[in-house]
Structure formats: C-alpha cells, structure tokens
C-alpha cells in the first residue's frame, strides 16, 4: 500500500502540471479550475458519507457559509481575505459541532432530513439578510489578497487549487489508513462492534462532520474569491444534492472516485448543453443508468474490473 499509493498521486501531480498547456483556451482552464474545486469539496464529503457512512444533505450550506464569510467580512468590515476565510471556517466548525451532537443521535432518513433542514436554514439566512448579503441577487467578492500579493489570473488559481487538491488527496489517504480513519470506517461497518472495542462512536461522527463542514467552508471561500461573485445558489439544496451525487457516482469510500465523480458531473452539463432545455432530463437519465449498472460508483467498479486496489 505504501509504494502503490504514491504512483497515482504522482500521476495526478503530473496531470495537473501539464494540463494548462493542453487546454486550448481560458474557457477550459476555468472549467478545469471548477472541476478541481469540486473535487476537493467532494473528497471532504466522501470522508463523511463514504468512509464514515453518515449522510449530509446540507453540505452546500457550509459551502455558502464560507463563501459569504469571504464576501461579507472584507466588503463590509474591511477584514483581510485570509482572516475572513479562517473566520468562516471557525464559524462553520462551531456551528457544525453545535448541531452535530443532537443530529447524530439520528440515523438513516432522519439524519438526512436533519442535515437537509440545516442546509435550507443557512440558505434562507443568506437570502433574507439582504443588507449584508445582497439577498437573492448576491454580491461581489473582493479579490483574494495575502501579504500584498493578489490572486487575479486564472493561472494563479489553477496552481493554488492544484496544490490544495494534491494535499487533500494525500491527507485523505493518510487519514483513512490511520487509527482515526479505521475507527471511522469501523463505525460505518458495525457501530455495535466499534463501541465494543472502545470507539467513542458519537465523538467520531461529530469529529468527521465538523472536519468535512470546515473543509466545505474553506472551498466555499475559495470559490467565492475565484468567481468574484456570490449568490445564494451556492448554498441551496440542489447544490447539496449535486455534491452527494458526485460522491455516489464517483464511488463511496474511494479517494480517486471522488475526483472522478466531481470531474464528470462538472463536465456533464457542458457536454449536454446541445440538448437545449432537455439537458436536465438527459442528466437524470445518465445518473439513473449509473446507479442501475454501477451501484458501487465508477472508481470501485473500474478498479474491481481491472483488478486493482479500490482506494
């Protein structure tokens, strides 16, 4: 496992390095950046859903929290963007920790409903607090600036996001192959057995939920600065569903599956643009076919087909 895991990581690094030179124009670079951002979000969500076996249908809410922290704090209060980003993560972490204890007493459908409700509440807050957030119209976000350097060109963003993606993949793999990660996967497999060997099941669920939420908040901030504008859509229910779909299509509990799911589902709407108004229908049909024929998700199915390790 130790040697084989650096091979795909190296391949990913090489791919990220040469990709900008292969892309014909800035439209594709923009698409690639959005794919990479989604890949990181989905990876964080997969730790919660795929590895620990808990569902969150409100993850876009946390994304929105980060995005709006990065929009509101520098614009209205003159905070430096980095401080706003960290404040967003901290706020998200505290909120996630506060709601996690009662939420994780629930299981299955009930957990899904509770996280769904949380996401909707966050979305309503950004829609209604118009004097701060611009309401449904959204608001512009100041450029990301740290120590006198401003990230303005798409290039800068590509390198930043690529570095973050590599770091996330490396850390996610480390985490899942550690005592912490094994405890998470074990409580997914059998809560009764995990408790029996001394795992504080509730504590671990809260920890991974908070971690995953803070991760989403960070990426929300980055998205906001990259796009330069934020609307409540970033925090809406459909975005949460889209993220969960990326996890499921790519492959639960699969690190590279998360990347695959994010890349494919970010690209798919572009490819389907020719269907003019019917693209949502085609999108839905493709998802249904995936679930019928590849219920374990793309990456694990392909890995099993070609006889390689799934993670």
């Amino acid at each position: 496992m130790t040697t084989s895991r650096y091979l795909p990581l190296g391949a990913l690094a090489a791919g990220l390095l040469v990709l900008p030179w292969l892309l014909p124009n800035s439209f594709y670079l923009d698409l690639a950046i959005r794919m990479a951002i989604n890949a990181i979000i989905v990876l964080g969500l997969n730790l919660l859903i795929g590895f620990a076996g808990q569902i969150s249908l409100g993850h876009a809410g946390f994304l929105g929290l980060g995005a709006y922290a990065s929009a509101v704090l520098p614009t209205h209060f003159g905070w430096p963007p980095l401080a706003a980003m960290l404040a967003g993560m901290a706020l998200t972490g505290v909120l996630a920790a506060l709601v996690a204890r009662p939420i994780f007493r629930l299981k299955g459908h009930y957990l899904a409903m509770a996280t769904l409700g949380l996401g909707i509440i966050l979305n309503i807050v950004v829609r209604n607090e118009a004097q701060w957030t611009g309401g449904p119209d959204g608001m512009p976000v100041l450029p990301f600036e740290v120590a006198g350097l401003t990230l303005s060109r798409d290039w800068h963003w590509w390198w930043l996001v690529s570095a973050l993606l590599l770091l996330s993949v490396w850390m996610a793999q480390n985490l899942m192959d550690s005592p912490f990660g094994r405890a998470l996967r074990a409580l997914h497999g059998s809560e009764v057995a995990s408790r029996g060997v001394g795992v504080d099941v509730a504590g671990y669920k809260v920890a991974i939920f908070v971690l995953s939420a803070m991760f989403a908040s960070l990426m929300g901030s980055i998205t906001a600065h990259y796009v330069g504008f934020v609307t409540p859509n970033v925090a809406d229910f459909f975005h949460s569903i889209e993220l969960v779909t990326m996890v499921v299509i790519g492959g639960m509990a699969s690190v590279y599956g998360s990347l695959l799911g994010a890349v494919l589902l970010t690209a798919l709407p572009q490819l389907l643009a020719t269907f003019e108004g019917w693209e949502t229908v085609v999108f839905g049909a493709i998802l249904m076919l995936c679930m019928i024929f590849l219920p374990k998700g793309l990456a694990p199915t392909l890995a099993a087909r070609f006889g390689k390790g799934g993670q």
Partner: protein
Amino acid sequence: MALLEVSELSIQFGGVKAVQAVSFSIDAGMIYAVIGPNGAGKTTLFNLITGVYAPTAGSIRLDGQPVHGLTPDRLAQRGVARTFQNLQVCMNMLAIENVMVGAHLRLDRSLFKAALRWPALRRADAALRDEAAELMRFVGLAQYLTARADSMPYGALKRLEIARALAMRPRLLFLDEPAAGLNPKETQEVDALVRRIADAGVTVVLVEHDMKMVMNLSERILVLDYGKKLAEGNRDEIRRNPDVIAAYLGAHA
C-alpha cells in the same frame, strides 16, 4: 476476590422479565460457561455485563468496582472484550484492519498526526499490523492476512471476531456462541482455540449450545432458564442436576 461479581441482576423490557435476580461470580483465569434453552436470557445477560443494556436492578462489579450502567466503550477501557452471536464484522474493511481496530484504545488517535503521516504514528501502525497478523495466525486465519472481510466464509469471520477481541488485550473475554453454525471439525478447532486463549491468561466466559464443547472446556457452568438462575456448579454437578435435566429434556424425562 472474584474478577467479576454479578448480584441480583435484572432487566425488564416492557412486561418481559428477560433476566431476573441472577447472581454469580467468576474468578480470574477460569473458563466459565452460561448455558440454557433458547430464550433463557443468555445473550441478554451478556449484553447487560458488556454494557449494551443498562440493568433495571442489581449490580455488576469488576475487580470490586461497580461497572453496571457503563457504556461498552467504557467497559472496553477496563479490559472487557466480546464477540457477537450475530456477526459484527466490518465488511467494508480488510480482515486485518478489523483486527487492528481492536487495538483502538492503545493507539494514538490524533486526527492531525494521522493526516500528516506523523512518523511515530506510522511506526506504531506498522508494528500493530505485525501484531494483528500474529493474532490472525493464532486464531487460525493465516491464509486471510490480505483478504477483504466480505470475501471470507462464516467460520473464518467468527474467528476474526475473536482475533479482534484479543487485540484489545482483554482481561475478560465474552464469547457469544463461538461454535454456532460451525461444522464438527471447525467446532473442535474453536474448542482448542478457547483453551489456548485461557492458557494465555484471559478469563473466558462463553455462551454455547454445543454441550460437548461446554462440558469439555468449562470449569464452572451457570444454567439459565426463563431468565432465572436454575443452577450453578462444576460440570459434574450440572450434569447430574435434576432441574437442569428437566429444563433441557422436558419435565417428564
């Protein structure tokens, strides 16, 4: 002093008195068996002692310390391990990882060190992997060292649970029907395994229907019927006890 002292232990589910005022004690180092007809309350008794249920009345003492009402993870900290009648193996993991989870409480569980691949943590994990492999060999799972748990047959999974429990380095090990569903050869192997575990200094409590195994292994036997203690004693006393014979073979036997 006894390692485990149970006195007047009772639990009620609605109107059902599943365990009623059961008392017994277990000395360190022995193999102790709990037997009884189906529905006698054996597994419920196990679940009470291992913290899955909280008793309605009565007390449980481990080394003289009251432990009733503690959750399973707290009891695990005090050296109580168990296996399950209906398998509780993590099918989403490798077999050896299941065993490694057993050592959870002995490990550095820091999230940050884990994410950053902290060298000391990696070294401890590598040592643990060797230890887990050793335990798998000990229980007779040498051919499954690289297997996924969901690819293993039933008999092997039962032993995997035992290996996981042993990874906790328990003082007190509860085995809930370790031979259930096994063929005679496998039963014999489990029989020998339980003996070796006890020889290693672990106090073993087992619930088992296989009378040959119970009579062969146990130094003391507790018989439950309808949630009550019917008899307790060594194997000869139990074998000759008229109440036990009646409960097992029907009152007219």
